[in-house]
């Protein structure tokens, strides 16, 4: 019997809400099966079993928000349960689901309150004294102002003493300035941590994309749209290839030391309509042919746009690529996504004059940058790593 725990969901997420139990007690599970879905700031994340066996029972009810590492279910490994219809005792230890709180804000990030919160409409003039009431409620000006801003009803406090600021809850109850969205908070937390902890250094160069674009164009010429490649898959594959030769850019820096990763799980920064971005991984981006990688990229983008991805994809990128696509600007220098140690940025391709063999020629080029972690590597190796990505892109047929 082993525990199935809430997996790590990336550096910026500490908990998640169990929203789907996709396997019933007694059902078989196989390593890699999606057996639960968890709601996070970044959308619904599917969680996979990590071993074969049978689901014994759920330990966390639907709707419960629990920290990473919390046991969610018990998995019985080996033989099927002898008596599959053991009546499920109602487990008294399991607390009922907490009441639904539509409050996405994490407690550790204060809601962003503008310095001058917009004043709620002037508090209605104090209601005319009710004739015959014994005395008038006395309220300090500060308390009255806060009540006006937050919509708090002062009459709820009674009138037997002076109402001071401390009596009025500061939590806005109505017309509150909008707190940061959960997605924006997650990005803010991860990026602030990155800038606080990671001593970034930056390098840049120009990629000649002529060969890569010609390769894509000739590959796609006779293919129906759903089989066509985007140049992004070349960027991902070239980065994965280079990362294997330069392990100090591919892995995790955690607890004061760096662990290189044997596999290259290349995170792809994907913009979300309506704001925000996520950078889930194309796992094992060195494996399979380019067609397979493209299919996986399409599938990933599709699922991300629907707000649904697998826990491993979010938690396990070992390096990230951020590409501005064909409608961006010349260059982007990324912020490393902790605990990763490098991010490659690729600008929008365009025409530029280049000198090749003494001749001035027009070539398709893009700016490429590397932001890397000085705790793990230096500019000299960084430059070689970046050069390696560029070199791989000069031989697209070998990718």
């Amino acid at each position, binding site marked *: 019997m082993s525990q199935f725990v809430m997996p790590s969901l990336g550096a910026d997420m500490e908990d998640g809400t169990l929203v789907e139990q996709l396997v019933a007690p007694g059902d078989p599970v196989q390593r890699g099966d999606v057996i639960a879905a968890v709601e996070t700031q970044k959308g619904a994340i599917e969680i996979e079993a990590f071993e074969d066996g049978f689901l014994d029972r759920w330990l966390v009810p639907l709707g419960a928000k629990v920290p990473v590492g919390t046991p969610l279910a018990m998995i019985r490994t080996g033989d099927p349960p002898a008596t599959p219809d053991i009546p499920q005792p109602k487990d008294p230890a399991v607390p009922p689901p907490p009441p639904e709180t539509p409050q996405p804000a994490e407690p550790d990030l204060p809601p962003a309150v503008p310095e001058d919160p917009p004043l709620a409409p002037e508090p209605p003039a104090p209601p005319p004294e009710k004739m015959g009431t014994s005395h008038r409620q006395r309220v300090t000006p500060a308390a009255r102002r806060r009540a006006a801003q937050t919509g708090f009803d002062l009459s709820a406090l009674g009138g037997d003493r002076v109402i001071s600021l401390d009596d009025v809850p500061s939590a806005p109850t109505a017309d509150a300035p909008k707190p940061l969205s959960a997605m924006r908070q997650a990005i803010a937390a991860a990026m602030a941590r990155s800038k606080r902890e990671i001593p970034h250094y930056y390098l840049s160069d120009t990629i000649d994309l002529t060969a890569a674009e010609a390769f894509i164009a000739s590959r796609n010429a006779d293919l129906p749209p*759903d089989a066509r490649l*985007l140049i992004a898959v070349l960027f991902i594959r070239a980065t994965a290839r280079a990362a294997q030769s330069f392990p100090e850019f591919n892995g995790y820096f955690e607890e004061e030391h760096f662990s290189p990763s044997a596999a290259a799980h290349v995170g792809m920064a994907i913009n979300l309509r309506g704001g925000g971005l996520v950078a889930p991984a194309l796992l094992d981006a060195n494996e399979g042919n380019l067609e397979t990688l493209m299919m996986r990229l399409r599938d990933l*983008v599709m699922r991300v746009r629907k707000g649904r991805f697998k826990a491993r994809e979010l938690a396990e990128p070992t390096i990230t690529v951020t590409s501005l696509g064909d*409608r961006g600007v010349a260059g982007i220098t990324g912020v490393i996504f902790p605990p990763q140690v490098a991010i490659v940025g690729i600008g929008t391709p365009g025409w530029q004059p280049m000198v090749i063999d003494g001749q001035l020629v027009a070539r398709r080029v893009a700016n490429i940058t590397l932001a890397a972690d000085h705790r793990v590597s230096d500019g000299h190796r960084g430059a070689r790593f970046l050069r390696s990505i560029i070199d791989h892109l000069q031989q697209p047929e070998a990718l």
Partner: protein
Amino acid sequence: MNDKDIRALMIRQLGQIAPDVPFDTVDPDADLRDEFDIDSMDFLTLITALGKELGLSMPETDYDQMRSFVGLQRYLSSHVT
């Protein structure tokens, strides 16, 4: 399929890709990708869906004719039999 059907199909497909962009706010002569804020993956998704529905291959070498809503509509109309 007549011009009106093609236009309706385009609006429907674009609505799935860019549900947040009301069709009546876009300039039909401007770059489709800017108007609907779609990236190369979205554009490929659009071309895939339209090509399947209309039985067209829509090769990459023709992409330049598909840059605006009007251009794409004209392209589809002239290729659909």
